[in-house]
């Protein structure tokens, strides 16, 4: 079966845009990606749109109302923080199935402020702070402390991840922040949910990213110079685990997806030159070093201590600045990370360029849980 290619991909600079609308931000990203592909909306045969906050409000169609109502099928996707990756994968699937040759995928989000999660309680009285915490910082802190329990991982090691990603973001003009955060600043920042301080939590921002996917036939016709090959596209949900009901599992769905992605790509983790993974919290990134096979189980702390995951290290992780500093507009994240990897594979990442990058991996987790992994290859 022939491969699917990313022909155009881009993102808007993440930030706060209270005077703009979700369709407006999505439309901007769509036009950027279309320009990057050298195509226009009239060339698109289908459109997959990812958004969470307005999941019932036909965001994809409203984007087309801003950039061109061509009558193509539009599918609106919502899959927690894996929403963007889901839209991208649906686009990939439709080409793989032979239905279309040129498809648009957009991920877009406008975020509120403050804590996510923990507000629901069903009937009766609020459960937050009564039956523990359901806020995202606490949930991912508990997942990180499971790693601490198994391997003795320290608060300082978790904090180093945030130092690294903030450093990377100083080289990414499209990141929300470009600010160095030394270790003592990260560790002394307001404690939100131990061991996650405020600087170890992803940044709530508005953002949008988009990609134009094409069949191999179309890529050859339009020119392969800047095309990126999609070597693997995988989604999983969370397989049964005994603590599921109180401890949402981000590990087993990632391990399952990684194994399937490596198999689909015919590659191993040692072939990967850079990874954009789901660092919604510093504690989460630690888990995924092992979940994605970047090191053996129990070695994640050493990986961050020895700088292996920094730009210039053995396997750079989140050179974009990650969700911790680039920002995490939920529905856009799973396409923004594909933009980042493609930019490196095209050799266009400037100061943060991973040298000679040929293979890159993206990973997102939607809590609940959904995992999306893509492996991309320089043509």
């Amino acid at each position: 079966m022939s491969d699917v290619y990313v022909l155009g991909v881009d993102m808007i600079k993440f930030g706060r845009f209270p005077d703009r609308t979700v369709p407006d931000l999505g439309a901007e990203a769509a036009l950027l990606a279309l320009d990057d592909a050298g195509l226009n909306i009239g060339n698109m045969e289908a459109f997959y749109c990812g958004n969470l906050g307005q999941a019932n409000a036909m965001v994809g169609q409203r984007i087309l109302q801003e950039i061109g109502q061509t009558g193509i099928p539009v599918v609106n996707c919502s899959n927690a923080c894996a929403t963007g990756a889901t839209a991208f994968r649906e686009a990939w699937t439709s080409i793989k199935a032979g239905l279309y040759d040129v498809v648009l995928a957009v991920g877009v989000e406008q975020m509120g402020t403050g804590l996510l999660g923990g507000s629901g309680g069903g009937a009766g009285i609020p459960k937050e702070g009564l039956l523990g915490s359901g806020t995202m910082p606490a949930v991912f802190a508990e997942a990180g402390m499971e790693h601490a329990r198994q391997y003795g991982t320290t608060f300082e090691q978790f904090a180093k991840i945030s130092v690294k990603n903030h450093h990377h973001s100083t080289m990414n003009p499209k990141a929300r922040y470009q600010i160095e955060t030394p270790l003592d600043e990260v560790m002394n920042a307001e404690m939100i949910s131990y061991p996650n301080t405020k600087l170890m939590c992803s940044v709530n921002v508005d953002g949008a990213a988009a990609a134009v996917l094409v069949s191999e036939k179309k890529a050859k016709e339009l020119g392969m110079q800047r095309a990126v090959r999609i070597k693997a596209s995988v989604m999983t949900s969370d397989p049964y685990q005994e603590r599921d009901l109180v401890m949402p599992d981000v590990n087993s769905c990632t391990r399952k997806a990684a194994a399937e992605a490596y198999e689909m790509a015919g590659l191993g983790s040692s072939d990967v030159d850079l990874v954009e993974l789901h660092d919604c919290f510093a504690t989460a990134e630690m888990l995924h070093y092992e979940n994605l096979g970047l090191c053996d189980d129990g070695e994640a702390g050493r990986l961050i201590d020895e700088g292996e995951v920094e730009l210039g290290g053995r396997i750079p992780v989140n050179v974009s600045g990650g969700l911790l500093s680039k920002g995490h507009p939920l529905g856009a994240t799973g396409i923004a990370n594909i933009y980042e990897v493609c930019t490196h594979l095209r050799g266009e990442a400037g100061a943060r360029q991973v040298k000679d990058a040929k293979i890159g991996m993206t990973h997102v987790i939607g809590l609940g849980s959904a995992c999306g992994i893509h492996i991309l290859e320089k043509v």
Partner: protein
Amino acid sequence: MSLPVVEYLKLPEDGEPYLEGHKCSECGSIFLGERNVCSNCFARDSMQSIKLNNTGKLYSYSIVFRSFPGIEVPYISAIVDLDGGGTLKGNLIDCEPDPDKINFDMPVEVIFDDALGRKDKDGNSYISYFFKPIS
């Protein structure tokens, strides 16, 4: 009369409060809350109501310093594996919110008490469960 904070907390009229689990007779998986199908082995009509133990061990935790307005912080959000099976999340009380004072696998007991004075819109009070270190 107080109501249970969750449906798997049972308040029998003639006995002590307890936590109810549902155990799959095919594979032994234990769930909180009623269900018809086992999500581990897919068996149907295999669920049996069981009384969960009131002792267990701390599996993981976070110390919560930032919460929503009106919620007293800090507090310890704890995940506890109950002896004999079943895992619960709840507040760990009577324990200093300091990582140096909280040990993985520390034994805890489940206690039942008023739900921190919280009442629903009809003025009903509630009984909740809490974890307390066993010294």
